[in-house]
């Protein structure tokens, strides 16, 4: 039966294919450069300019620059990828103008890659083929296929430096399979996926593919693994290969400003599926089956929320994308909005269709100018292509959206406050119930979902709710993106299946604590979250387990703290944040956070008594139980969880007047060691208050009354003679 939506989608993909074919990029050398706020800060725009100059100077028309978003490998930016047709792509890290010249003259012009600049030493071993075995539950069921393959390679004396065997998170290829047992294997750089049942199949691959260089057609599957494009480009980098990219599958691959590229990567197929079925309930059921829980922090089942909105008799309904990412230390939403805006958009349109919304709003922080620009561009392009506006994709259903800017109020991340802000009011929360799904924006039923929640929707529709659910845990399906930062070797955006132990994220992907210091705690959930002590690092990341130890999943900030961090100081930092951001509407939060902060100030300045600790705890519980909105209720979490796990540090501050991490300035004193000081006068010259006295070649002395404890002397002394006590 002909369906207007299917016809529309076919015409759209045909048009895109023709246009991309005209560009003829497949035969060209592609220089891929990241373009997002963080990449720009690291200097990617200079790199882009330099490459453009080099291309012009060389006169080559078969080399093009491809702008993409950010992959989330923050500490190694700017990252540049070079793809020469027929060869595996090479990525370079921390590229500057000088390295651009080397890459261009040696790699692009002469075909000799530069291992010394390769991302994470990924060029140290180059393999002719890499076989990536799917690690999904279903594929793993068979067990031992990877091991048999490795054994087979050894038997046939295939050199180890020629073929590499590795594993990766679930491909999603199994979602349509109903019969038989098999495992899936992706071969790089051939871009082929095989369905392998047994030893015979493995032998066939070895004979045909490795020896003969021919693709084994009978074993080949046409369905594309969910993050194949991502594997193709990045699977040789350990930071990425341990991740499972669903929400961020296109980040760093697609040009975030090109609708055509998004469509060529399977974009808008999910929307076409949803619209062509003509049944919003089917969409809601798939999302329910997926057990997708809100990624903004609350963890409410998305399908359930949508269902509630549809049960309302009022037909004017709204959908809102919450991009007011105010949590200090979190940047996944910015990453997705800047790097893959269309996928967030498609998810949102599907959500709007499911709840029958007529209008959608993006609420984005004004501090994210690039994200705003890219979303606006995406809205314009979608509107022009008939993907938004009157009769979306020819379905007869009208839907449009617009951007509303935040203005730097953390509380606006709370849904009722966000609604007030869109209405043009001060962003102060309201009492719930009624929940926004009943009475929200302008009194109409409203669904508010997080950016990452929407980014997962297309994958659920394309690969099925059941598949999505089995990626995660019993309680919650799918993956979660974390912004890994703090004292960790590799910072960046990390997407792992829910249920992954914290340890695997921090040590496996993050590479462990910076400077190999001891891990003290992991903080999740930002100012509303809590601390998880190092002793609990095997805890699985999921909504339930995190809540059990006094933290929350939150929106996905993950800050690694080492032995050099003071838990009291960090708790004070979070509290000062919520205190400043408290909207002032309800007393427990407004006054409670202020009083708690005063107590924390006393503790860190050595003026507190043990009674204060009880007061602090009582106030914290009061604030937690009686505040109006989530901000106030969660504000004491850092205090309560640090009191629970690190009470001895508080006691040390109060009783012994000691800060073991040497972070609390008032409790630290600087002294010059007479044995080590050679009298070079450097410390005295750098002291801002002239507190250090002593002649040349004589031992110096710090006058404790004048010392402001700025630590300058400690940093400038080349003989380690200044001691911090």
């Amino acid at each position, binding site marked *: 039966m002909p369906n207007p939506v299917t016809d529309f989608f076919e015409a759209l993909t045909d048009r895109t294919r023709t246009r991309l074919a005209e560009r003829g990029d497949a035969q060209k050398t592609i220089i891929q450069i990241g373009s997002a706020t963080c990449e720009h800060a690291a200097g990617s725009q200079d790199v882009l300019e330099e490459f453009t100059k080099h291309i012009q100077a060389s006169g080559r028309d078969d080399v093009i620059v491809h702008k993409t978003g950010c992959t989330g490998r923050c500490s190694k930016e700017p990252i540049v990828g070079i793809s020469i047709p027929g060869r595996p792509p090479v990525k370079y890290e921390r590229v500057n103008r000088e390295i651009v010249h080397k890459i261009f003259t040696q790699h692009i012009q002469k075909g000799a890659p530069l291992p010394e600049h390769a991302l994470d030493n990924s060029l140290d071993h180059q393999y002719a083929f890499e076989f990536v075995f799917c690690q999904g539950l279903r594929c793993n069921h068979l067990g031992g296929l990877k091991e048999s393959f490795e054994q087979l390679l050894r038997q046939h004396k295939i050199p180890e430096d020629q073929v590499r065997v590795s594993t990766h998170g679930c491909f999603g290829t199994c979602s349509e399979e109903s019969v038989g047992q098999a495992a899936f294997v992706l071969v790089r750089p051939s871009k082929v996926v095989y369905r392998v049942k047994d030893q015979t199949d493995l032998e066939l691959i070895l004979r045909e593919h490795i020896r003969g260089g021919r693709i084994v057609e009978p074993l080949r599957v046409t369905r594309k693994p969910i993050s194949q494009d991502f594997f193709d480009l990045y699977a040789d980098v350990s930071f990425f290969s341990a991740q499972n990219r669903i929400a961020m599958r296109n980040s760093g691959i697609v040009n975030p400003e090109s609708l055509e590229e998004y469509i060529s990567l399977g974009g808008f197929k999910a929307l076409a599926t949803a619209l062509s079925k003509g049944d919003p309930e089917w969409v809601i059921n798939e999302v329910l089956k997926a057990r997708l829980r809100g990624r903004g922090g609350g963890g409410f089942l998305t399908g359930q929320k949508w269902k509630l909105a549809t049960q309302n008799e009022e037909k004017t309904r709204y959908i809102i994308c919450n991009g007011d990412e105010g949590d200090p*230390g979190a940047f996944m939403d910015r990453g997705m909005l800047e790097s893959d805006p269309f996928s967030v958009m498609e998810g949102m349109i599907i959500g709007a269709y499911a709840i029958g919304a007529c209008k959608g709003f993006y609420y984005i922080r004004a501090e994210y100018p690039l994200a705003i620009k890219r979303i606006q561009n995406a809205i314009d392009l979608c509107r022009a292509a008939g993907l938004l506006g009157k009769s979306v994709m020819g379905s007869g259903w009208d839907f449009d959206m617009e951007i509303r800017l935040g203005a730097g109020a953390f509380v606006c991340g709370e849904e009722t406050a966000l609604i007030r802000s869109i209405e043009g009011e001060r962003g102060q929360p309201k009492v719930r119930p009624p929940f926004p799904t009943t009475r929200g924006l302008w009194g109409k039923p409203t669904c508010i979902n997080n950016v990452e929640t929407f980014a997962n929707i297309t994958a659920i529709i394309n690969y099925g709710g059941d598949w999505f659910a089995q990626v995660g845990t019993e309680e919650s399906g799918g993956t979660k993106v974390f912004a890994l930062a*703090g004292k960790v070797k590799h*910072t960046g955006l990390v997407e792992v299946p829910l249920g992954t132990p914290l340890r695997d994220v921090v040590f496996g992907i993050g590479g462990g604590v910076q400077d190999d210091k001891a891990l003290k705690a992991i903080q999740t959930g930002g100012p509303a979250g809590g601390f998880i002590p190092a002793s609990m690092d095997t805890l699985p990341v999921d909504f339930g387990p995190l809540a059990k130890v006094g933290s929350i999943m939150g929106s996905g900030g993950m800050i690694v703290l080492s032995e050099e961090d003071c838990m009291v100081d960090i708790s004070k930092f979070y509290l000062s944040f919520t205190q400043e951001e408290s909207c002032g509407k309800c007393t427990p939060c407004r006054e409670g956070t202020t009083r708690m902060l005063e107590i924390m100030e006393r503790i860190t300045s050595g003026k507190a008594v043990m009674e204060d600790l009880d007061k602090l705890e009582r106030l914290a519980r009061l604030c937690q139980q009686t505040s109006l909105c989530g901000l106030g209720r969660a504000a004491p979490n850092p205090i309560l969880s640090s009191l629970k796990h690190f009470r001895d540090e508080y006691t040390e501050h109060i009783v012994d007047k000691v800060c073991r991490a040497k972070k609390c300035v008032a409790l630290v004193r600087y002294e010059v060691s007479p044995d080590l000081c050679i009298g070079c006068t450097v410390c005295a010259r750098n002291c801002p208050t002239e507190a250090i006295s002593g002649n040349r070649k004589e031992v110096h002395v710090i006058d404790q009354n004048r010392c402001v404890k700025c630590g300058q002397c400690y940093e400038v002394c080349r003989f380690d003679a200044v001691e911090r006590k």
Partner: protein
Amino acid sequence: MNHQTSTTDNWDAVRAACLEILPEHIVAFIEQNQDLEHSEGQLIATLHMVQAHFGFLGRDKMHAVAQLAQVPLAKVTGVATFYHYFRLQPRGKHIINVCLGTACYVKGADKLSQRLMDDLGIQFGETTKDGVFSLDSTRCLGTCGLAPVVMVDDQVYGPVTPGEISIILEKYSRREKSSRL
């Protein structure tokens, strides 16, 4: 609820007075919104435009917005003071924002702040006497991977050490000096 544009008999005079304060495109934006449903929801967007144009929201400007949009001045001021992003005072030519997000904080943003305050001789929220720099703190710029970071106007610098502060400041003050010559 829809606001009528002309509720007073001296509307032309009011409008002319507002046009002297606000640039045309903002006046056009407000007037065009008046005809839409839920026009009061555009107040924050309007204030964003005013701030983008003038760098801050002065009393006269807020008054003009209130007049044109036909909302009480108290509401405009209420909204303007609620959100941290809006400024009520004129700013320096270059705005320095120290990120005080968690990642920057654990990596020493407090030391950067101290150094900036010492070097510029001002506190957070203040502007130098010559009007070149304003110093501010911000909650997470979302570039945690580069922590600690300092943002001058739209340019993000990171990771920055206290020693590099003077080099960054020098870059801008030199540009200022040469443009004055």
